[in-house]
C-alpha cells in the first residue's frame, strides 16, 4: 500500500516534469519557428533585392513594428486571460487625434502633457472595457466590439470634419519617432525595453502568472483563490493604456491625423498576437512571441513591396498566415495531448 502510493507519486511527478519540459521545449521551438521564418524571409528578400536591408527601409519596418508590437503587448495580456480586446484601433485613433490636437488648441503644450492625455484616454477606455467585462459579465468579444464602434463614433464626433496636419505639430513632437540612436529609431529601443519588461512581468510576477492560470481554466483559477475579476480588469486597463500611448506615437509618426486613424488595426494586432504563438483561447503564449509576430507581419508587407509584388497580396497573405498559425497551434496541442496520454499509460502500467 505504502510502496504503491510512493510509486504512483513518483510516476505522476515524473510525468508532470516531462510535460513541463516538453511543453517548454515546444514553445521555445515555436518562437524559434516564427523567428526562423522571419530570418528566411529577410534573407531571401535581401538576396533578390539588396536594398531591402538599407537603413531607411529597416527604419520604416522598425517604426511600423513598434506601433503594432506595442499594441500586441497589451493585447497579449488580454488574450492570455482568455479574452480579446478589439477596441485597440479605436482607442489609438481617439488618443492620436485628441493628444495631437492639443498643439492646435493651446500655445504651450509640453510633450509630457501630450503623452499624459494619451495615457489618460487609454486608461478611461480600458477601464470601461474592463468594467463591462468583469462587472457586466458580458463576453469580451461583444464588449470590445461595441466599444470599438462607440469609441470610433466619439472620435468622429470630436474630430468633426477637421484634421491635424503635420506642420501644426512642433519638432519636439515629431522627434518622438524621428530621433535615432546609432541609426535605430529611439522609440523602437524604448518599446523593445518595455516589451522586455512586459515579458519579465508576465513570467515572474504573481499577477502576470495569474493571467495564464485564468486563461487556462477560469473556474479553477477562481476556486484556487485568484482574484480573476481584478486581474482581467487590470489586463484590459493596461491594454487600453498602451493603446492610448501608442496613439501618441502614431500621431508623431504620421503627422496627419483624422478620424480614420487606426481603423482596422484591431484585426492586425490580433493577427500578430496569434501568429506570434499566443493561443487565442488563452493560457499560453508570450509577449516576445507576439512582438516577433508583429515584426514578421510588417517585414512580410515590406518585403512584398520591395519585391515588387503588388501590395494587393498583403492582406491575403496576412490572413493565410493567421490561419496557418492557429492550425499549427491546434496541431501542437493535439500532439502534446497524445504524448502526455501515452506517457501516462506507460507510467501507470
Amino acid at each position: 500500500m505504502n510502496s504503491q502510493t510512493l510509486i504512483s507519486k513518483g510516476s505522476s511527478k515524473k510525468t508532470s516534469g516531462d510535460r513541463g519540459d516538453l511543453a517548454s521545449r515546444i514553445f521555445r521551438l515555436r518562437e524559434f519557428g516564427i523567428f526562423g521564418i522571419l530570418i528566411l524571409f529577410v534573407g531571401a528578400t535581401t538576396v533578390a533585392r539588396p536594398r531591402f536591408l538599407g537603413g531607411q527601409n529597416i527604419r520604416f519596418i522598425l517604426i511600423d513594428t513598434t506601433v503594432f508590437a506595442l499594441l500586441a503587448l497589451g493585447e497579449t495580456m488580454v488574450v492570455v486571460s482568455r479574452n480579446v480586446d478589439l477596441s485597440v484601433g479605436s482607442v489609438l485613433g481617439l488618443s492620436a487625434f485628441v493628444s495631437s490636437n492639443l498643439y492646435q488648441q493651446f500655445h504651450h503644450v509640453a510633450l509630457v502633457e501630450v503623452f499624459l492625455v494619451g495615457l489618460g484616454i487609454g486608461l478611461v477606455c480600458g477601464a470601461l472595457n474592463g468594467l463591462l467585462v468583469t462587472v457586466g459579465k458580458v463576453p469580451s468579444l461583444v464588449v470590445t466590439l461595441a466599444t470599438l464602434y462607440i469609441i470610433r463614433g466619439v472620435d468622429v464626433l470630436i474630430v468633426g470634419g477637421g484634421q491635424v496636419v503635420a506642420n501644426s505639430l512642433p519638432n519636439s513632437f515629431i522627434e518622438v519617432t524621428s530621433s535615432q540612436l546609432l541609426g535605430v529609431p529611439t522609440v523602437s529601443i524604448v518599446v523593445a525595453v518595455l516589451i522586455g519588461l512586459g515579458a519579465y512581468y508576465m513570467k515572474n510576477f504573481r499577477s502576470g502568472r495569474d493571467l495564464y492560470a485564468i486563461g487556462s481554466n477560469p473556474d479553477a483559477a477562481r476556486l484556487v483563490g485568484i482574484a480573476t475579476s481584478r486581474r482581467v480588469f487590470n489586463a484590459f486597463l493596461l491594454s487600453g493604456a498602451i493603446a492610448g500611448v501608442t496613439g501618441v506615437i502614431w500621431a508623431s509618426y504620421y503627422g496627419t491625423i483624422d478620424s480614420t486613424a487606426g481603423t482596422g488595426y484591431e484585426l492586425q494586432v490580433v493577427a500578430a498576437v496569434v501568429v506570434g504563438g499566443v493561443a487565442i483561447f488563452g493560457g499560453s503564449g508570450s509577449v516576445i512571441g507576439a512582438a516577433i509576430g508583429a515584426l514578421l507581419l510588417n517585414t512580410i508587407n515590406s518585403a512584398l513591396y520591395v519585391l515588387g509584388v503588388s501590395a494587393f497580396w498583403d492582406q491575403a497573405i496576412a490572413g493565410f498566415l493567421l490561419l496557418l498559425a492557429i492550425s499549427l497551434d491546434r496541431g501542437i496541442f493535439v500532439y502534446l495531448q497524445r504524448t502526455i496520454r501515452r506517457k501516462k499509460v506507460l507510467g501507470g502500467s
Partner: protein
Amino acid sequence: MNDITTVPNLDSGKGATLPNTQANTSKRSFKSLLVWESGLFVVLVASVIGGSILSPQFLTAGNILNLQLSIGEIAIMALPLALIVITGEIDLSVASILGLSSSLVGYLWMHHVPMSIALSVVLVVGALLGLFNGVLVTRLGLPSLAVTIGTLALYRGVALVILGSNIVSNFPPSYTSIGVNSIPGFDISYSMFVFIVLAVIFGLVVHFTPFGRSLFAIGLNKEAAAYAGIRVKRTKTTLYVLSGVICALAGVLYTFRLSTAEYNNGSGLELNAVSLVLLAGVSIFGGRGSILGVVLAVATLGTIQNGLLLTTFPQQAMGVVVGGLLLISVFVPNASLIRRQFQEFKFKKVAKKRSNSGESMGDLETKRILSSATGGKGDMLQS
C-alpha cells in the same frame, strides 16, 4: 434555490467564459425570449413614433425605401449568422465574403462574362468560401472566432488580388435598377424581398423542424447533442456553407445597389451583422434566439439609423448608436447576474466580519464556495 450551477464547457470554442449563464438562460429561455421580443417591439414602435415626430419625411414611401436599402444586405447576412451563433459559433468573415463576391462580379463583368453565368459562379464561390470556414472549424476543431478573423483578412485580401484598385461600374441599368428600385407594385426593395422570403423559410426551418431544434441543442451542449445522435460537425458545416452562399448573394445585391464593384465593398459590415444578431436576442453563447427576433431587430435598427440620418446626426458617428444598442442588448439579460454579484460581494463582507470575530477560515471558504454554487444566497445558508 438548490439547483447546481453547471460549469460551462471550457473547450467549446468561445473567446470568453461567463460562468453560470448557460444554466440560467436555458432554464428560462422561452420566457425571456418572449420578453426580449416584446421589448424589441416596444422599442420599434417608439422609434417609429419618434422618427415621424422628428421629421415629416420619415413616413414617406421614398424614405421607407431608403431605409430598406440601407439595411438590406446586412439583414440578409444576419439570418444565417443568427443560426451559426445559435449553435455557439461565430462567423466574422461575412462582410469579406460579400466583398469578395462583389469583386468577382466586377471582374467577370469586366471580362465580358454574361451576367447569369457570373452570378452562378459567384454563388458557387460563396459556398466554397463558407465550406472552407466550416471545414477549418469542424474538421480541424479550430475556434471559429480565430478562423473567421483569419478568413476575414484572407477573403478581403483575395478580393483585393482579384480586382486590385480597379473599380467596375459599367453595369447595365437593368441590373443596377434591382439595387435601387422597389419591386413594381410594392413598396419593397429587392433586398428586403429577399430578406423576407429567407426569413420566412428560416423561421419555419428553425422553429418547426427537427433540424432547427438540433441547432439549439448543439448550442446548449454540443456533447449532449452528439450523444443524442445529432451530426454536430455536419450541421455546422452546412450552416457555414449556407452563410457563404447567402453572403455572396448579399454581395451581388450590394454591387447592384451602389452599381460599383470594388474590393473594399462592405468592409466592416461584419460588426453590423453581429450587432444585429445580438440585438435580436440571440445569445452569444448559443442555444437561444429566434428568427422573429432577427426580423424585429432589423426593423428597429433600420428605423433608428434612418431616423437619425434625417436629423443632423453625422453618419460616420452611427457607430455610437450601433455600439450602444449592442451593449444594451447584452447587458439587459445579465441584469440579474450583476445583481447577484453584488449580493455575493456583500456576503463576502459579512464573511470577513465574522472571520474577525473568530470563525475558522476553512468553514468560511466552504460556505463561500457553496454560496457561489447556490446563486449567491449565502445569507440563507448562514442563518
